[in-house]
C-alpha cells in the first residue's frame, strides 16, 4: 500500500515538474515585463530597465530560469522553500500563505454543501424515477449546468444582498412576497408526494397555507429583526432529526436505536440553557465552540452503547449523526441571537448581507460571535454561487450511478432474500453507487478551484484567484508559478485521494493486496 502511494506520488511529482516547466516557459516567452518601460518617457528609463532585468533575471533564458525557480521550490524538503519574490518585492510564499486560507474558506462550504445536497437529491430522484420531481430536478440541473457563474453572482448580489438589506430596513414581508413564497413552498412539498391528484392538491394547499401563516406570524412578531427558534424549536428539530436518522439508518421499528437517538435529542433540550450561557461567556474561543457538540457526541455514543447490545455500528452512526445535527441546531439558535446585535453594530448599520470582501472592514465590535457571524455572512453569497455549479453535476452523476446499480442482479438477490426496500437501497445499492462518485469529487475539486477564480473576482475576495489574476496582468512570473504550483499540487492530490478512496470502497480494486 505504501509502495503504491509512493509510486503515485513519484509520478505526481514528475507530472508537476513537466507541467510547471511548460507553463513557466509559456508565460516567460510570451510576455515582456519590460514592455511598459520601453515605451515610457522617463529619464532614467535605461536604469530602470536594467534594474528590472537584474531583479527578474531577464538576461537568463527561461528554461534555465525555471531551474533556479525549481531550486527554490525544492527547498521545501529542507524547510526553506523559496518561491521567489513578486515584482513588487514581496515574498511569494507569504502572499500565497495569506491567500490560501481565504480561498479554502470560500471553497470549502460550497463543496461540502454541493456534495451533500447533490447526492441526496440525486438519490431521491433515482428512487422516484420518472416522477414529476425527477423531471423537474433534471430540468433544474440542466439549467444549472448552463449558468455562467459570474452572471448569476451579479444577480445574487442584487437580489439576495441589496434587496434583502433594503427589506431589512422595515422588517416587514410584503403581501406579494408572502403569496409567492407560499405557492413555491406548496409546490415543492407537493413535488415530493406521489399519488392521486387529490392528494397532491391537498399537500399543496397545506404547504402553501402553512407557509403563509408562518410568514405572517413572522411579520407580526418582527421575527426578522430578532430571530430565534427558542428551546421549543431546537427541541422539535432535534426530535425530528432523531426520528429521521433512525428511520433511514436503522429502521423505524428498531425501538432501541430510536430511544437512544431520542435521548440525544433530549440531552440537547436539557442542555439548551447551559450551552447558551456557556457561549455567551467572555472568554469565548474555538474550544468552547465545539465543546457542546463534542459533548453531545459523547452522550450519543454512551446512549448507543447502553441501549443497544447488538448491531452497535448502526446505532452509533444514528446517534452520532443526531448529535451532530442537534449541535448544529444549537449553533443556529445562538447565531440567531447574535444576529440582532450584529445588524445594529457599527459598521453594519442594518445592511448585513455584504456583496464584497471576506470581512467587514468597518466593523467596530469584535468578539468571537460577531466575527463568526461576519465571516459567515460574507461567505454566504459566494457559497451559493459556487454550489450552483457543482450541485447539478452531483445530482446527475449520483442519479445515474444509483439507477445503474438498481438494475444489477445483486439487488434482485437482496430482495429475494426478504430484505426490506429500505435496507436494499441503503445497504446494498447506495454502497455500490457511491464508489464512482469519488472520481467525480476529484474532478469537481479541480473545477471548483477554477470557479473560485471567477467568484473571487465577482465578490472581491483576496484569495488565490486574485493573486493569479494579478500575476497574469502584471506579468509576474514568480507569483504565477507559485499559484500554479500550489493549485496543481492540490488538484493532483485530490486525484490521489479519490483513487485511494475508490480502492478503499471497492474491494475488487484493493491496492497492494
Amino acid at each position, binding site marked *: 500500500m505504501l509502495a503504491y502511494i509512493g509510486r503515485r506520488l513519484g*509520478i505526481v511529482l*514528475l*507530472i*508537476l515538474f*513537466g*507541467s510547471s516547466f*511548460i*507553463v513557466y516557459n*509559456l*508565460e516567460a516567452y*510570451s*510576455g515582456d515585463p519590460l514592455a511598459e518601460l520601453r515605451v515610457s518617457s522617463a529619464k532614467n528609463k535605461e536604469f530602470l530597465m536594467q534594474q528590472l532585468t537584474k531583479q527578474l533575471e531577464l538576461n537568463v533564458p527561461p528554461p534555465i530560469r525555471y531551474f533556479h525557480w525549481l531550486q527554490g521550490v525544492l527547498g521545501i524538503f529542507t524547510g526553506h522553500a523559496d518561491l521567489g519574490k513578486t515584482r513588487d518585492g514581496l515574498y511569494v510564499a507569504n502572499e500565497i500563505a495569506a491567500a490560501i486560507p481565504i480561498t479554502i474558506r470560500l471553497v470549502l462550504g460550497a463543496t461540502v454543501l454541493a456534495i451533500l445536497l447533490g447526492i441526496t437529491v440525486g438519490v431521491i430522484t433515482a428512487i422516484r*424515477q*420518472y*416522477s414529476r420531481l425527477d423531471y423537474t430536478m433534471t430540468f433544474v440541473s*440542466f*439549467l444549472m*449546468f*448552463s*449558468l*455562467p*457563474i*459570474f*452572471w448569476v453572482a*451579479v444577480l445574487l448580489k*442584487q437580489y439576495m444582498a*441589496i434587496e434583502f438589506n433594503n427589506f431589512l430596513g422595515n422588517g416587514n414581508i410584503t403581501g406579494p412576497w408572502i403569496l409567492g413564497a407560499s405557492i413555491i413552498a406548496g409546490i415543492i412539498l407537493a413535488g415530493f408526494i*406521489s399519488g392521486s391528484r387529490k392528494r397532491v392538491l391537498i399537500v399543496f394547499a397545506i404547504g402553501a397555507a402553512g407557509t403563509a401563516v408562518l410568514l405572517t406570524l413572522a411579520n407580526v412578531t418582527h421575527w426578522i429583526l430578532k430571530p430565534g427558534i427558542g428551546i421549543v424549536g431546537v427541541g422539535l428539530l432535534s426530535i425530528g432529526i432523531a426520528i429521521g436518522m433512525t428511520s433511514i439508518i436503522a429502521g423505524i421499528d428498531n425501538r432501541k436505536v430510536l430511544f437512544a437517538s431520542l435521548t440525544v435529542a433530549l440531552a440537547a433540550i436539557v442542555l439548551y440553557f447551559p450551552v447558551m450561557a456557556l457561549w455567551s461567556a467572555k472568554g469565548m474561543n474555538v474550544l468552547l465552540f465545539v465543546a457542546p457538540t463534542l459533548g453531545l457526541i459523547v452522550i450519543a455514543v454512551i446512549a448507543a452503547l447502553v441501549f443497544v447490545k447488538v448491531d452497535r455500528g448502526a446505532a452509533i452512526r444514528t446517534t452520532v449523526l443526531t448529535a451532530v445535527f442537534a449541535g448544529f441546531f444549537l449553533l443556529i439558535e445562538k447565531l440567531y441571537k447574535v444576529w440582532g446585535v450584529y445588524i445594529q453594530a457599527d459598521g453594519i448599520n442594518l445592511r448585513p448581507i455584504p456583496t464584497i470582501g471576506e470581512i467587514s472592514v468597518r466593523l467596530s465590535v469584535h468578539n468571537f460571535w460577531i466575527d463568526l457571524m461576519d465571516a459567515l455572512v460574507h461567505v454566504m453569497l459566494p457559497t451559493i454561487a459556487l454550489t450552483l455549479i457543482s450541485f447539478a453535476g452531483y445530482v446527475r452523476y449520483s442519479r445515474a450511478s444509483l*439507477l*445503474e446499480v438498481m*438494475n444489477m442482479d445483486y439487488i434482485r438477490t437482496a430482495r429475494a432474500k426478504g430484505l426490506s426496500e429500505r435496507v436494499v437501497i441503503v445497504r446494498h445499492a447506495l454502497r455500490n453507487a457511491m464508489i464512482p462518485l469519488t472520481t467525480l469529487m476529484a474532478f469537481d475539486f*479541480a*473545477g471548483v*478551484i*477554477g470557479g473560485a*477564480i*471567477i467568484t473571487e*473576482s465577482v465578490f472581491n475576495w483576496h484569495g488565490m484567484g486574485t493573486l*493569479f*489574476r494579478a500575476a*497574469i*496582468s502584471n506579468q509576474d512570473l514568480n507569483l*504565477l508559478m507559485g499559484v*500554479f504550483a500550489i*493549485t*496543481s499540487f492540490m*488538484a*493532483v492530490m485530490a486525484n490521489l485521494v479519490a483513487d485511494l478512496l475508490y480502492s478503499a470502497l471497492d474491494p475488487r480494486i484493493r491496492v497492494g493486496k
Partner: protein
Amino acid sequence: MATKKKSAVEATTEANENAIALHETEGLSQGQIIRRRFFRHKPAVISLIALVFITLFVYSASGIHLGTAKHPITIPGWWPHSMTEIQDSVFCKGSIGCPGIAHPFGQDPIGHDYFALVMRGAEQSIMVMLVVGFIGGLLGTVIGAVSGYFRGWVDAVLMRFTDFIITIPSIIIGAVIGFKFGNLGVVALAVYLGFFSWTGLARLVRGEFLTLREREFVDAARVAGASNVRIIFKHILPNAMGVIIVSVTLMLAGAILLETALSYIGFGVQSPDVSLGTLISNYQDSFTISPWLFYWPGVLIISIALCVNFIGDGLRDAFDPRQRRRISRKDLLRATFAKRK
C-alpha cells in the same frame, strides 16, 4: 442426425429464431435507429431547433467577422446598426437608452446599439464554441484512439501527457493564453483553447477503444486481412462514435461557458472584439439602472448552453438507451385498468 428429421426441426427452429419482436428496427441501419431515438427525445429536438434558429439568426443579423484587428474579413448581416456607430440615446424613466422600437435591446450609455453588440458577442462565442469543439474533438479522438488501440508504451506516454494537461485547471491555462494571444483574434484564441480541452474526450475514447478492440469482430477483421488502419477507421471508430459525439457536445457547452468566463475576468476576448462575457463584465454595475444591458448577454449564454446540453442528453439517450423505458406510474395504472378482461 438423420435427414428425415430435418424438416420438423427446421420448421420449429425457424419459428423460434424469428420470435424476436424487432418491429421497430426492421430493415433499419444503426444510424437510422439512432436518429429515430433522438427524435423521440422532445427536449433535445426542441433544443436542436432552437439552437439552429439562434445560430442562423445571430450570424445573419450580425454578419461574419474573421481575421485579426489589422486584417479583418467581414461579411455583413441584415441588422441596420453596426456596433460601432453611435446614436444619441434617449432618456427614459430614470436612465438612458431604454429598449424601444429602433433599438430593441436598448443602447449602452455611450449610444451604441445594444442589439448589435449582443449579436456580435454571440457570434464570437458561438465561433469559439465550434472551433474549440472541432479541435478538441479531433485531438481527443485521435489521441484516445491511438492510445487505446496500440496500448503498450504508446498508451503510457500519451496518458502521462494527458495527465500533464489535466493537472492544469483549464481556466488557468485559458487565462495565460487569453492574455497573451487574445489580441490575435478570436479564432486564434479558440484554437489555443481547443488545444487544451481534449483531455476528457481522450480518456473516454481510449476506454472505448480498449473495450472494442477485444470484441470478436475485430479479431475476425484481422483474420480477414484487415490492416490496423482499416480496423481503426472502419470497425472500431464507427462503434465509438456515440461516445465521441456526446462528449464533444458537452465539450461545446463547457467551451462557451469557459470563454465567456475568461472574457469576463479580462483574459479572453480582448477589445475591440466583443464577447458576451465582456459585455456582462462592463455593465454589471449598471444593473439597477439599465438592466437590459446586463440581462440580454446572460440570457443568450444560458440559452445556447442549455440547448447544447439538452441536445447532448438526447444524443446520449439515442446512442445508449441503457434501460428499457420503465413505465411511469400513471401509465401503469392506466394500462392495468384498461386491459382488464
